[in-house]
């Protein structure tokens, strides 16, 4: 009875020595057991291609109403047909700024989960849930408010500020949200 291996492998005894070396290597990325701080890879590291630090340009941010709710109805897109008829040109006007109707149930569930994790001292866990929410609704101002507040809570003012500015730019037409973002930015000294 044999264990067949079609891939040619050289497994001499000399590899035993290498195994000791592997042990050392194992400590480099795995670090089993030890609670290591999670490394947040920022601009230079995470982006592609190599990018020097972006130059932030402080600019006045006017308010704009939130743009799209995740449950917004999508227009039906016609099946690909080669153009034959030229329809009359009509374009929708920019929506009037309105009050923010509150986060969708899915966002509420994730924000609550994040709150729970944060109160248990798990800021990274909270961040993960809020980023889930942000992926689901990248234009929801409430999610940005939570993200900015969490960053502030984590002592990361540099990340809190642009989040607050983006949130502010999405909350025109809602005085409560606008006030909340302005207070946050004022607290950041901006």
């Amino acid at each position, binding site marked *: 009875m044999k264990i067949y291996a079609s891939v040619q492998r050289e497994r001499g005894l000399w590899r035993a020595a290498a195994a000791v070396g592997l042990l050392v290597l194992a400590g480099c*990325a795995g670090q089993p057991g030890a609670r290591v701080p999670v490394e947040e890879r920022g601009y230079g590291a995470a982006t*592609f291609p190599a990018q020097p630090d972006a130059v932030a340009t402080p600019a006045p941010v006017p308010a704009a109403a939130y743009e799209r709710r995740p449950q917004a109805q999508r227009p039906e897109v016609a099946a690909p047909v080669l153009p034959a008829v030229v329809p009359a040109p009509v374009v*929708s006007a920019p929506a009037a700024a309105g009050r923010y109707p509150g986060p969708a149930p899915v966002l509420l569930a994730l924000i609550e989960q994040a709150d729970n994790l944060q109160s248990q001292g798990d800021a990274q866990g909270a961040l993960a849930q809020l980023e889930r929410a942000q992926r689901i609704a990248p234009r929801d101002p409430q999610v940005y408010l939570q993200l900015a507040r969490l960053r502030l809570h984590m002592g990361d003012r540099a990340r809190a500020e642009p989040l607050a*500015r983006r949130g502010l730019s999405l909350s025109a037409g809602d005085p409560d949200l606008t006030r909340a973002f302005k207070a946050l930015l004022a607290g950041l000294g901006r």
Partner: protein
Amino acid sequence: MPKKRAPSRSRSAKSAAKPTGRGWALLFKVLLVALVLLLLGLLYMDATIRSRFEGQRWAIPAKVYARPLELYAGKALTAEALAIELKQLGYQQVGWPARPGEVQLQPGRVELISRGFDFADGKEPSRRLELRFANGQLQQLSSAGEALAVARLEPVLVGGIYPADNEDRDLVQLEQVPPLLLQALVATEDRHFYQHHGISLRGIARATWANLRAGRVVQGGSTLTQQLVKNFFLSSERSLLRKLMEAPMAMLLELHYDKNEILQAYLNEVYLGQAGSRAIHGFGLASQYYFGRPLEGLSVEQLALLVGLVKGASYYDPRRYPERAKARRDLVLSLLQQSGGIDQRAAHRAAQQPLGVVAKSSLTKGAFPAYLDLVKRQLRRDYRQQDLASEGLQVFTSLDPIVQSLAEQSLQTVVQRLRQRHGAAIKGLQGALVVGNSQTGEVVAVIGDREPRFQGFNRALDAVRPIGSLVKPAVYLAALEQPQRYTLISAIKDEALQLQNADGSVWSPNNFDHQVRGLVPLHQGLSHSYNLATAHLGMELGLPAVIDVLQRLGVRREIAPFPSLLLGSLSLSPLEVTQLYQTIAANGFETPLRAIRSVVSSEGQLLSSYPFELSQQFSPAAIHLLQYALQETVHEGTAKALYRRFPDSLNMAGKTGTTNDQRDSWFAGFTGDYLAVAWLGHDDNRPTPLTGSSGALQVWAELMAQLQPAPFETVAPADVSYQWVDPERGVLTGTGCPDARLIPFIVGSEPQRFSGCGIQGSVRRAQSWFSRLFAD
């Protein structure tokens, strides 16, 4: 080395072996030395075994996962799109889902049992999910009759980063392994495993007898322990030395470790199949490879099939030799029955079952090479190749397998259509496509070749080509950032001009249609992509202002300050162009493009996360005006082919790009949720018959038609006001005047002069898309 010295000593011992007193003494000495050497050898073997066994035993390749599909009421998702995802996850269609990984697909309704997954941010349980679809949306999500706010499917495994020997495995713990598998393994391979001390004399005797009777080798006498030693510590060549070392090493192994530890190592080491160059090791991965589900979920005949493969994974390959595999499986079943693992009825029933092996997933063959290439390049900045290939890291990416599949189809469909129209002129035409989320900066799909499976030159990342008119938004943005000087209706000269090249020669650009228009409103210069107007505007602004805008939009390459830059001599890859348009789509907030969300260790510990980052680079007001002009491009400019195909309410924005002699055909555009950049051209830079509009735009349109995107709804920032104006005379008009347009201005830059509807100047177009705004 002790093994080398030992024979030479024994040779000298032979020559000295004479029955004299001195001879005996010498013999004794030599034997003593041999004994010491033997002991040393044993000690060496012992050290080898212990370090290998207790150290890191296996190089576990990094696993790369797609984004998990988030399910929640209100999500834009059709049952058909979900079916694509489930197919890639290896779900089996059944009438009534009873086990994890089974699904019932009906029109408008899907019921499944998810497998559950340990995410970096928590465990997603395996559970029954009921989904109802209507109007292109997931309308209802519930589990066991109760509404569920959100659930995640397990992520699709899209690839791995393999070590040089291409061994791949999923580690299993003994406790996870179904007891029937262990029983079948022991009954088939080594009946006395729990009694012997590494070698089994009974086993050897039995094998010898069987081989003698058969006249050839039909049975081996190796115990499981010996098999493990052979694979674990020794080279695969057959040699006497190896055979001699196998037995003592097996005994040493048994001395140090208990049966369970040895069995667990065996379960993970054994070779069970071959997927291309990738060797499938261990029962954990074999279960996924043959049945698309974890070991815990296998039935008895499936377990028996895997045990049967131990004897020869290629000879009994169930996909290639199903009959052999079935005979072998049924033999294992009967051995299992003889050992009391199952009763006769169960054995009989199991033997009636088909093999149940799933088709080889297309994903095992490097399904998304261009995307994985991007992931690997990003990983290599933060991790060493050897760690990636050995530490069992889990890499979570933002790849969307549904979008990726649709993007591949779109590119292939359009290239084929173009081939029918243009024939030999586009022989060998190549293409690339990058799709991202227009708001979060996550890259969701990448294609680097017109054959998306081809693993070679990745054009999405490495085809650095002149971007042509795709550069123009930067010129106009530089102008719109100066509201006191420029508005969307500023008159721009559209006249012949001479520009100096890098080499000092003089160059006179032309409009695409070779017309000269004298003066054009600024917004039209962009939407109709007039070269002369853009060059005039850019020279007025100065090249440094344009270069500054390009850098803030996200261009990190060095930009040569020559006038030809204004018309697109700048060369970028499709991915870099995506970054540039990302900033425009996200209202002036630059978010570095990301393909990786997080990296988790084999123990499930988060090692690095790549969080959402953004920095504000432009005022939303200036970007709002630019977006207006880019929407106009789609409505009445160079990209109006799109407008004929999609509903107005989508409000798409985009820009075509064509380079000299039509060597490159580009389109970059965005909707509410997706941003995509398409490129078509020849690798050898030959001219094509394609413009941006007749080439790349078609790919983009095909993709968006498949994706059913969300509309791009802009909202005017507080410092932007919309005014009815006569764009050609630059005056305010009454609301809804025949030739007036509603145009956004940064507050304070509106025209001051007012002129009613009555005064009509030069001949104008009868209709403009914006004048119809409030028509009904």
